[in-house]
């Protein structure tokens, strides 16, 4: 190997990478937040006594879990507009794909969590006069979230990484900018290493904080 790395190409293009990082954040955080809300609602539907409701939500979950994310993103960009007659921007298609995908996974996490809480917890809450919604909010969900935190953390990290797939439909996020720069300057080693490092710096604090939060929540065990 006679290659001499030259990281000045990274420093010189720092603003471009930062812009990419910003777009990554713009896809990542909202799709996680909306995915969690969607996941909670779909979990309610999955747990419904009505066969039709639980059936439809099951189909939804399986569709998103059993197909590659990459195809989902590309599908929402190229195929979905044909279906509805509205052309989505790459950003919107990526956001929609990731949000719906996250909803499907999060719903399974919620469903597992809600089912793992003993029936007596709901009864204990109802017996003091709470409505089902109050019981869910005050008694069931706090316990579900505590139990499900490791799974949610994993999912959040997965989505951060999956957001890089949006580069294939030309969303100008971090991965896209990294690839563009590396083919412009023929410095893939420096630029892609830098991109990987930025992902690490982005994701690691989340893992660390989630670990701390888990410990804090485990104090009642």
């Amino acid at each position: 190997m006679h290659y001499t790395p030259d990281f000045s190409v990274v420093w010189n293009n720092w603003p471009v990478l930062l812009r990419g990082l910003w777009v990554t954040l713009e896809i990542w955080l909202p799709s996680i937040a909306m995915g969690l809300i969607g996941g909670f609602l779909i979990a309610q539907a999955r747990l419904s006594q009505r066969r039709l409701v639980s059936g439809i939500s099951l189909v939804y979950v399986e569709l998103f879990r059993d197909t590659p994310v990459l195809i989902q993103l590309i599908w929402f960009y190229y195929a979905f507009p044909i279906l509805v007659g509205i052309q989505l921007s790459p950003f919107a298609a990526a956001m929609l794909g990731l949000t719906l995908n996250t909803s499907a996974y999060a719903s399974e996490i919620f469903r597992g969590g809600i089912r793992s809480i003993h029936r007596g917890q709901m009864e204990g809450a109802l017996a003091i006069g709470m409505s089902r919604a109050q019981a869910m909010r005050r008694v069931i969900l706090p316990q579900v979230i505590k139990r499900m935190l490791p799974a949610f953390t994993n999912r959040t990290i997965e989505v951060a990484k999956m957001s890089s797939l949006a580069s294939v439909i030309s969303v100008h996020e971090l991965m896209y900018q990294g690839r563009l720069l590396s083919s412009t300057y023929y410095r893939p080693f420096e630029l892609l290493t830098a991109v990987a490092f930025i992902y690490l710096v982005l994701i690691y604090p989340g893992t660390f904080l989630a670990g701390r939060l888990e410990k804090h929540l485990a104090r009642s065990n």
Partner: protein
Amino acid sequence: MSQNPILEIKGLHKRFGDHHVLKGIDFSVEPGERVAIIGGSGSGKSTFLRCMNFMETLSEGEIWLDGQRIGQQVRGRMTYPEKQLCKVRERLGMVFQQFNLFPHMTVLQNVMEGLITVKGLSRQDARAIAVRELAKVGLGEKHDAWPGRLSGGQQQRVAIARALSMEPEVLLFDEPTSSLDPELVGEVLRVINQLAEEGRTMLLVTHELGFAYHFATRVIFLADGVFHEVGTPDEVLKNPQKPRTQEFLRRFGEFAF
């Protein structure tokens, strides 16, 4: 006895699929009465109690609370609006076999929860009530403990304090000592006894026949989904008239009155 029952049940049936658990029960409770419900396992005694506060839906029948029928007729069918059931459950406190404390809340928070969320009290007022009720069940020192760290007997006493805090008109106890180690049964029964002395209206499903004898003003032996024998503790527990009751008491062995 007063003329107005606090709780009245008419023609109660409960089916789980093909399994007909309760087969037409009529029953009323006067204020201040203490009713012990006994019977073999699977006799439907817990189901009966759980129908009172709609932890189980009724297959047929009517429940009247303080002269008012629970539920609404909508196009010829009985419906039970959630708002109404919440009010009913607030008025009929329930203590469960498995305590059902909220593990993510401290002892004090467990007792305050209903006061804040259901009654809409301020934290300060809720706290004052919770402190008082916990002192009453002898757990004044355990405010900040997590339920998981308490003994079964202590957990059950917290559960009783939680039910009491809502100031229910009737207390329903569903085998409150059945999941406790024998040495912890006494502390829970003492608390229940103390409530009896206050003149509270209580329904108790239990296997503690000795306790039932001293506690109850009326004893019901439930078998095959019907009230097989009903009477004073002396009548049912000491001089049962029906062979089935006699057999049950014999199988349950010796107990000291």
